[in-house]
Every structure is written in C-alpha cells, then in structure tokens.
C-alpha cells in the first residue's frame, strides 16, 4: 500500500510537471509528518528531471532512429556495362521499434538503403527545406 501510494505521488508530480518544492509540499495532507514530508519532497525534486526524461524516452512513437552509418562505393562493372565508375551511397539506418511495445528488450532493426547521386541531391534539397522550416519556427 505504501509503495503504491508513493508510486502514485511520484507519477502525479511527473505528470503535472511540478518543479517547485511548495507545489509538492502542498500535495501532502495536513497532518503529515513534517520532516518526512520535507525529505520526500527533497528526494522527488532530485529525481524529477531524470524521471521526466525517461517518460519522454519511453513515450509511444513511431519507430525511432538510433544510429546511422554510411559508405560510398564505386560500381565498376555490371551485366549491362562491363566498365564504368559510378559512385553510389549505401546508408544504414538502425531503427528501434516503439519502445513502449518492447518493454526491456527493444527490437532494433537495421535497414540498408542505396542512394544514387541524384537521389542524394534530391534528399539534401528536402532536408534543407526542413532545416529552413525549423529555423522559421524557432525564430517566431
């Protein structure tokens, strides 16, 4: 019962985003033991940002990017042309499925994608536009 009550208290504090001692103190009932109240409040305040970050990290979401690697290859020959020198990019994205679904064993899959130079240029144009939109939002 005690653990459950503590759990509810901490969840409430995290949910509401309470950051001031007064707000947390006001949650306790009137005749609660003074020193215990202060001690609990102090401990909660110390941990609050870690708990918030963890809650945010385990939010439901689309699969998340966890890592990314790339490599540039030069294609020298194929069944349609015997000699050529065409650079191409291989991009590997490590993607983690929804953290909330996986619990403690997150499933990470690796997706390897090939991009030609043209595709990369188009993609960079798109990414540049995203960056411009982000700066426009940030400057508002």
């Amino acid at each position, binding site marked *: 019962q005690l653990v459950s009550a503590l759990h509810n208290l901490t*969840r409430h504090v995290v949910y509401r985003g309470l950051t001031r001692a007064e707000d947390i103190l006001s949650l306790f009932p009137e005749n609660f033991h003074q020193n215990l109240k202060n001690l609990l409040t102090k401990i909660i305040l110390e941990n609050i940002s870690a708990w918030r970050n963890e809650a945010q990290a385990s939010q439901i*979401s689309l699969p998340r990017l966890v890592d*990314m690697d790339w490599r540039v290859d030069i294609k020298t020959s194929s069944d349609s042309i*015997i000699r*050529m020198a065409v650079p191409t990019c291989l991009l590997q994205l490590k993607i983690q499925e929804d953290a909330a679904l996986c619990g403690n064993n997150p499933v990470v899959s690796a*997706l390897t994608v090939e991009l030609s130079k043209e595709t990369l240029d188009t993609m960079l144009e798109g990414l540049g536009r995203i960056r411009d939109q982000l700066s426009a939002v940030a400057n508002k």
Partner: protein
Amino acid sequence: QQFSELTEVLFRFLTEPKEVERFLAQLSDFATMNKISLGPLKNIVKSILLVPNGALKRNLSSEQVKADFIALGLSEEKASYFAEQWKVNSPTLTRLAVGQTLMINQLIDMEWKFGVTAGSSELEKVGSIFLQLKLVIKKGSQLENVYVELTLPQFYSFLHEMERVKTSLESFS
C-alpha cells in the same frame, strides 16, 4: 533514305526500351511502306541490334562502332551514318544501362512532417519537437514504406552526414 528511317526507328527503341509495342508497330509500318516482308526484316533488325548492345557493354567509341559495321559488310556511308547516330545517342544509352545496374533497396522517395508532442499519458505538457520521415524503398520489385522518427539533434547530425556523403560522391564523379 530507307536506312536512315530504319536507324531512327532502332534508336528510338534503344533509348526507350520499354516501348516494345511501339517499336514493333513502327517496324511493321516500315515493312509495308517499303514492301519488305516483316519476318526477314525482324531478323535483320535483331542482328543489327546486337552491335549497339555489344558496343554499350564495352563502351565502344563511334569509330569502333563504324569499324564493326564495315567489318560486318555494311557500306561505308551507312556505317558512318549509324556511327553518327550512335555518338549522339550514347550518353542517353549509357545512362540507361547504368540505371539498369543492380541497386539494393533503392531509395525512391522521401516525405516528412514535423510537429510538437503536446502531451502524453505520463506527462501532461511536453512540448518537444519531432520529425517524422517516410522513406519509400524499392525492395526487389515492390515498394515498401519505412517510417522513422528523429529528434532535432538527430536530424541535424543526419543532415551533416548526408552533406559529407555528397562531398564524397562528388569527389569520385
């Protein structure tokens, strides 16, 4: 005259290899107009096509193509004409051949949206920005959609890496 028309038909097919029906229709028009029967014409065309296909594979120059045709018995004038057409069309043809080269999980398209997470079951007010990418990938002959979410710092480092890739690709072109 006849030869140049035929050459034109051939090159139109080579530059657009998917237009098979159009090619066959044009061939049969050519046959009727010049009073040749279609069967032998098709055989001749098949043998003629071997030359540009082989030339493409081996990156032959137009002089080499011309020499090949002359060796096969074509007149100097016709061979020159064909070689000229070859020179004009070879960038397109080479690009097509490179395009046909195997690509693994080719990225076809990318869409994005970004927004703000307002709240969740754990946190009443969140206010964090996320970016969602949808990548359209060709796996074999099917298209597959992959959805990924990135935080802002991840996005900026992704952009930075892709710019490095571009520099690298350009230095090899």
